[in-house]
């Protein structure tokens, strides 16, 4: 089944964290929520897994027993061992005795097998993330939700975590994740761009790139008076009307450009 939210609004007391967010996360695919800090990614994910009640809108998700969740914390018990985490998760999800059969390969794939008896508090940051993911994957969820599961994880471990996510999606799960890394977002089948609690755009990376208004230019030096950002040693420039500037040549739009332009355009609309 697919999961998703429609016209979602999340409030914490009087503070409105998210409003008007709608997307569908299909099975067998990775859907990524992208946006800067405070964009509302975590609030959307919390509403999706049922950790917070929406103030308005609807949430559709499988029952709790079919949802795996890795929170930013990442929500593991520092004074339990790796093996005890899996045992508790298995019991909480009512997996019965065959959980051991699943846990073995999962520990191998996450590289946690040698650390089975180690306390979670003694694991490195990356290994803790892997443990949280292993716990989320153990019940073979229909919906797998990850909140910045790869933040602070070294590049090699990130690649391993992504391999696990891809496997889960290939196995039929709808994977929804929040990330600030746009190279990760590029691997997702669909993206939801959030900014200040609002949904700016949604679609596949190709769709988002195609829908970018104006043109992206590249310059050696920072052009004055226009919206520009660095990419490597060069400057990227957004030209809303598509007009080329002196010293800046038109280049193909990348996903990163598309997301930055969506944010800039929203800021422009707010200012207007």
């Amino acid at each position, binding site marked *: *089944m*697919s999961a*998703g*939210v*429609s*016209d979602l609004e999340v409030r914490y007391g009087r503070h409105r964290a998210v409003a008007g967010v*709608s*997307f*569908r*996360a*299909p*099975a*067998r*695919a990775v*859907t990524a929520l992208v946006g800067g800090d405070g964009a509302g990614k975590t609030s959307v994910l*919390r*509403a999706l*897994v*049922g*950790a*917070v*009640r*929406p*103030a*308005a809108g*609807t*949430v*559709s*998700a*499988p*029952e*709790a*027993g*079919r*949802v795996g*969740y890795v*929170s*930013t*914390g*990442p*929500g*593991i*018990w*520092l004074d339990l061992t790796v093996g005890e985490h899996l045992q508790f*998760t298995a019991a*909480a*999800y*009512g997996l019965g005795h065959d959980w051991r059969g699943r846990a073995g390969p999962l520990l191998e794939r996450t590289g946690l097998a040698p650390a089975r008896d180690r306390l979670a508090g003694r694991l490195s940051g990356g290994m803790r993330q892997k443990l949280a993911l292993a716990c989320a994957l153990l019940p073979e969820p229909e919906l797998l939700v990850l909140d910045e599961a790869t933040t602070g994880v070294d590049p090699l471990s990130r690649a391993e975590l992504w391999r696990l996510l891809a496997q889960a999606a290939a196995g039929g799960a709808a994977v929804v994740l929040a990330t600030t890394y746009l190279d990760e977002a590029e691997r997702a*089948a*669909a993206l*939801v761009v959030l900014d200040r609690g609002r949904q700016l755009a*949604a*679609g*596949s990376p*190709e*769709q988002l790139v195609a829908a970018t208004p104006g043109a992206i230019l590249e310059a050696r030096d920072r052009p004055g008076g226009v919206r520009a950002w660095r990419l490597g040693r060069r400057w990227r420039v957004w030209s809303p009307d598509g007009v080329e500037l002196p010293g800046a040549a038109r280049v193909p739009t990348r996903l990163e450009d598309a997301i930055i332009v969506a944010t800039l355009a929203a800021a422009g609309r707010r200012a207007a």
Partner: protein
Amino acid sequence: MWAMTLKEFRQLRRDRRMVALMIVMPLVLLIVFGYAASFDVTEIRTLVVGEGAGTIAGRLPEVFAVDQVRPGDDRADAERALRDGEAQVAVVAEGRQPAVLVDGAQLFAAKSALAALAQARGSASGPSAAAGGPGTEAVAPSIDVLFNPDLKTSVIMVPGLIGIVLVFVGTIVTSLGVVKERQAGTLEQLAVMPLRPRDVVAGKVLPYFAVAALDMTLIVTAGLLLFDVPFRGSVATFVLAAALFLLVTLGVGVLISTVSENQGQAVMLAFMTVLPQILLSGLIFPVEAMAAGVRWIAYLLPLKYFIDVARGVLVRGTATGALLLPLGMLALLGVTVFTLAVLRFRHDVAPRTHRGGGELPDERPLAGAAATPGRQPGDGPGPGRGTTP
């Protein structure tokens, strides 16, 4: 250094609860405890029995507040009345020599009674007594201290200390255990897992209950062996009172954890509930010696009722029937506090409370979406979870 001081003041100001605890609480505590801190019992509840009861009742020193005169009762009835806590002193006016029975389990009332009797005896042997007519009052009464004949402090303190240990384990340790879960962010993980909220609450509290119960068994045994504390009453009654009392203290612990953001706040709050219990429950200062303005607080404290039962059952061997009031109060406090605690804790672990259909956006499906329609409203309860406020 000023930068550091300014930063610290700013942080302190943000933690309003801490400021309140630091400034308001000491003042309140000083005032309350100042009025409560008194060992002087000025009124001793006294029962007079025996055929001469009517005569004797009027001649007792002022400190004996005679509230019951039963000429038809005998010494055995008086002993039972003391055992069941109906009076602190009983005067048996039978035969030539009256007998004064003193409840040794109420240490300070007993000491006041003995002092008053000694003083009366001293003045009776003086000239004013010699002028008295031919009556029984010239005969010095026999004095019997029951239950705790040597008036040992440990005998009455140990049952109360059992309660204090349970308060510490129940309130402080429990609140820390739950707050730790909140601070680590694992409470949210529990909320999302397919666990029933009541199972989360019960599963969280049960280990502390078990540890506290084991703790209690240990300290009761140690108290009996090391301090010669008697155990004269019903074990079942004591166990019942202890279980009810634990329910209250664990409930207070959970309640504190639901209003605390971190372990520091939890410890401070727990301490603020423990301190009044230690000082106002009758453990140290007798409740009847407290100023009336603060005495009522004692009647809100679960430890007071636990101590009533513990001293009654252990030291006096009080019949269960005479302990129904403290047992009932413990049950009432236990049910109230624990229900409140569970409701508040439930709120933390069960934000998703209603089921129903959820309609997904069809107008802008995401690319690559092999979309299946979302559950429609009116599908009725099913495995899916939708939320519609």
